[in-house]
């Protein structure tokens, strides 16, 4: 399993994580999916729909955001292939809460933002049986 992403898009994701710090930021990854690898070609960011107090450790993209992302993907002739979000001052591993809410098949790109600086991103996919996340390689081109 592999997620290919350009340096430009990854830097954009990191910049969003830094701008939103200490709150979480989230958005969709659009692109093309193959059997094992996928290529991100575009990102879409939406406002975190959580109440103010919980934005430091939670994000929410509404069904309307999902619909907009699917329409945009259709317009561009690609698919919604995953979600990116930041973990401010927290490791970039999926949490129990991430797992409970995760969709299968999607790539979940998580960026650790420490003291306002995006440090590293890792990408994960939920296993078919929903019991665990498996890490996928990020290939930056």
């Amino acid at each position, binding site marked *: 399993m592999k997620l290919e992403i350009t340096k430009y898009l990854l830097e954009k994701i990191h910049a969003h994580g830094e701008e939103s710090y200490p709150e*979480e930021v*989230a958005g*969709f990854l659009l692109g093309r999916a193959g059997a094992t690898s996928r290529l991100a070609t575009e990102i879409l960011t939406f406002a975190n729909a959580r109440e103010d107090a*919980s934005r430091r*450790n*939670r*994000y*929410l*993209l*509404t*069904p309307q*955001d*999902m*619909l907009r992302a*699917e329409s945009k*993907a259709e317009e561009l002739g690609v*698919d*919604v*292939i995953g*979600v990116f*979000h930041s*973990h*401010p001052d*927290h490791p970039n591993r*999926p*949490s*129990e*809460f*991430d797992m*409970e*809410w*995760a*969709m*299968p*098949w*999607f790539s*979940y790109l998580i960026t650790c933002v420490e003291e306002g600086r995006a440090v590293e991103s890792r990408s994960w996919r939920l296993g*078919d*049986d*929903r019991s665990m996340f498996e890490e996928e390689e990020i290939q930056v081109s």
Partner: protein
Amino acid sequence: MPTLRIPTPLRPYADGQTEISVQGKTVAEALGDLTTQFPELKKHLFSEAGELRAFVNLFLGEEDVRHLQGIETPLKDDDMLRIIPSIAGGNH
């Protein structure tokens, strides 16, 4: 028969299909038929206790069925029911 529209991440569990014709006079019956046709979808739509997972939203036209009659909302033959996930997460 009503039609169910499947979001991208669940399509691999429905033979890659975007829209599926289902039998049923209510949302609950339509979901029952969907998971009978595609049993792999069940664990992603329902918890082990059989409840719809929190991220699963069902829209009839522009309306969330939670604001209609929930899973007992009646369906007509030409209705399109969309499964639209909320995407959520966080660090602890």
